């Protein structure tokens, strides 16, 4: 497979280090050739576009220009928020006026010939499912999981053009292939409260609480996410949620790459399972040990 | 005179009775305002439009000619618009040979219910003709030669549009 530029996003250095490290590990195992975007900077995340679209696009476009400088035409990011920003920037810069305004803010102009994808999309479209199957050593048999995609991985469909925007299946398919029992989670694209955790924790408590509740009603052992913000809201803030709602959720929240790495038998330290706040070991313990085939 | 100073140019439309003429009526009923340059000649079917009519319009100083018929497969006469399409496509290629800028000629399909589309077509076409400005006055090789060509064409010889 051709080299793909990799944009880890700021949270990969902080709140979601385990997402970053597990993504890299899984990609390595599946022969997805990632090269870090040189000297990448913040894409603007959710705050920038609420202030100004040119500013927000410029913060993203600097990174697209970096990718262009590396001579690559595809960049993958694990984070849906980064994905949205990079894609929106490129999309809007298709209009000359807007592009000129953005480039006026940049040292190095961006030509926007780079395509941004989520790492999930790369797995879904560019990795042979047979390869994944052939590498599974610890099938996830015995656990029931709910896949949660977050609100902006697939929306708006005109921009994201990946998977079904009301009922995405890419992660479900992956988890199924790894042997897990995937439940039909109905709130796959419902918002978790986004970045309001800090200024308006009450909003996150309510919205993320709803997701946890839906997963519990379904009988899920755990939630699986593809977004650092969702994961943080659901996992790190689960205690806050419990206090706010008078609940007692004990729902581990994995990154899908962690479970992939687990099933592929990758080095546990790279998967960062110990970084999760809600202890996942009880759930992992449910996984039936594979019967060695002789 | 620069094109901007000219309020109106001479644009001739050939419209089939069943679809496009009706579409233009629908646009009128809907009060979809359009530029006034265009004058419409009603013919039963786009298949009735002889490319010579169009050539004649240009030779007589038209700045633009617009032809509109029923959508393919919707023709009131089953296949008239297929004939029209073939002939008009040929004409479009033939026009430059006679020294006429073929951007001054366009053919399209508008159905009787598409008043809005008609408004759009007229507005865009008129805008295009205004961008091109008035047609340069015809400067034939010689008048006799032109007459010869015209007669020849009218007899179906040397005019690729027939058939």
């Amino acid at each position, binding site marked *: 497979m051709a080299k793909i530029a990799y944009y880890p996003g700021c*949270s990969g250095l902080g709140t979601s280090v385990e997402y970053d490290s597990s993504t890299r590990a899984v990609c390595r195992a599946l022969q997805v050739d990632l090269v870090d975007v040189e000297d990448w900077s*913040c894409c603007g995340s959710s705050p920038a576009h609420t*202030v100004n679209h040119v500013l927000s696009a410029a913060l993203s476009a600097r990174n697209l220009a970096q990718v262009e400088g590396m001579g690559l035409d595809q960049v993958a990011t694990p984070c849906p928020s980064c994905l949205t920003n990079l894609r929106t920037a490129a999309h809007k810069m298709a209009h000359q006026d807007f592009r000129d305004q953005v480039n006026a803010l940049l040292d190095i102009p961006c030509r926007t010939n780079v395509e941004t994808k989520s790492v999930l999309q790369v797995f879904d479209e560019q990795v042979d499912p047979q390869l994944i199957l052939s590498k599974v050593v610890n099938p996830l048999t015995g656990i029931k999981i709910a896949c949660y995609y977050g609100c902006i991985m697939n929306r*708006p469909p005109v921009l994201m053009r990946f998977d079904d925007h009301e009922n995405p299946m890419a992660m479900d398919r992956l988890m199924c292939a790894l042997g897990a029992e995937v439940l039909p989670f109905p709130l796959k694209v419902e918002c978790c409260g986004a970045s309001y955790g800090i*200024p308006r*924790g009450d909003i996150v408590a309510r919205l993320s609480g709803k997701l946890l509740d839906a997963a519990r009603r379904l009988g899920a052992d755990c939630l699986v996410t593809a977004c650092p913000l969702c994961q943080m809201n659901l996992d790190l803030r689960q205690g806050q949620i419990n206090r706010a709602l008078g609940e007692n959720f004990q729902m581990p929240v994995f990154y899908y790459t962690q479970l992939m790495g687990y099933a592929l038998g990758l080095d546990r330290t790279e998967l960062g399972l110990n*970084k999760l706040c809600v202890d996942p070991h009880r759930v992992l313990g449910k996984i039936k040990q594979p019967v060695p085939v002789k | 005179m620069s094109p901007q100073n000219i309020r109106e140019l001479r644009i001739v439309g050939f419209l089939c009775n069943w679809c496009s003429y009706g579409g233009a009526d629908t646009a009128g009923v809907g009060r979809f305002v359009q530029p006034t340059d265009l004058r419409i000649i009603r013919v039963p079917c786009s298949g009735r439009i002889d490319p010579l009519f169009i050539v004649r319009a240009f030779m007589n100083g038209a700045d633009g000619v617009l032809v509109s018929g029923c959508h393919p497969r919707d023709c009131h006469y089953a296949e008239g618009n297929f004939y029209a399409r073939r002939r008009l496509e040929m004409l479009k290629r033939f026009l430059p040979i006679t020294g006429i800028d073929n951007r001054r000629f366009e053919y399209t399909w508008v159905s009787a219910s598409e008043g809005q589309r008609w408004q759009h077509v007229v507005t865009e076409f008129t805008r295009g003709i205004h961008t091109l400005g008035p047609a340069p006055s015809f400067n034939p090789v010689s008048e006799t030669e032109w007459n010869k060509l015209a007669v020849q064409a009218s007899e179906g010889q040397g005019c690729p549009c027939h058939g």
Partner: protein
Amino acid sequence: MQTFDLTTADQDFIAEVESRSHQNLKTCYQCGNCTAGCPYTFAYDYSVSQIMRLIQAGQKEAVLQSRSLWLCGSCQSCTTRCPNLIDVALVMDVCRHMAREAGYATERAVKVFVDSFLKSVERHGRAYEMGLMVAYMTRSGRIFTDVDLAPTALMRGKLPFKPHPVQGREQVARIFERFRQGGING
């Protein structure tokens, strides 16, 4: 409740929202689908369809002072499901820009958070969470925000004490600088 004077609808405001969002807001027929899908409706003062209606009615003050603008999570549910194909989330974004430009901040905590975040990016080139938290707490005066989480996060190595250096951080800083000089609407 307020009485809106419809005869003095602010046409310039309507035109500005339409031109900055490239949306034809007259096509909104108030079906409420956006409100029905919006997960944040419970926290809004005006629901998103009401915001759309108020824009149509040219009620600039009511819109720009709405707290809803600051609470929209840009989750795209409204945009995705609008039967008239209006990019509603974009309209919310544009109104938020206009509110900010007009100096409103009816959800102050949100504004402070956003400002702190961008400050941190401007300074370091990347978001620096610890710095951001500290800046937010001091500026918002909410010094106890998430203190309960700090130990968990710290223990798991999720809140590094030092910012991550970006060589091109001057480049990023210049983006902000030029932006402030440019007076850009976008």
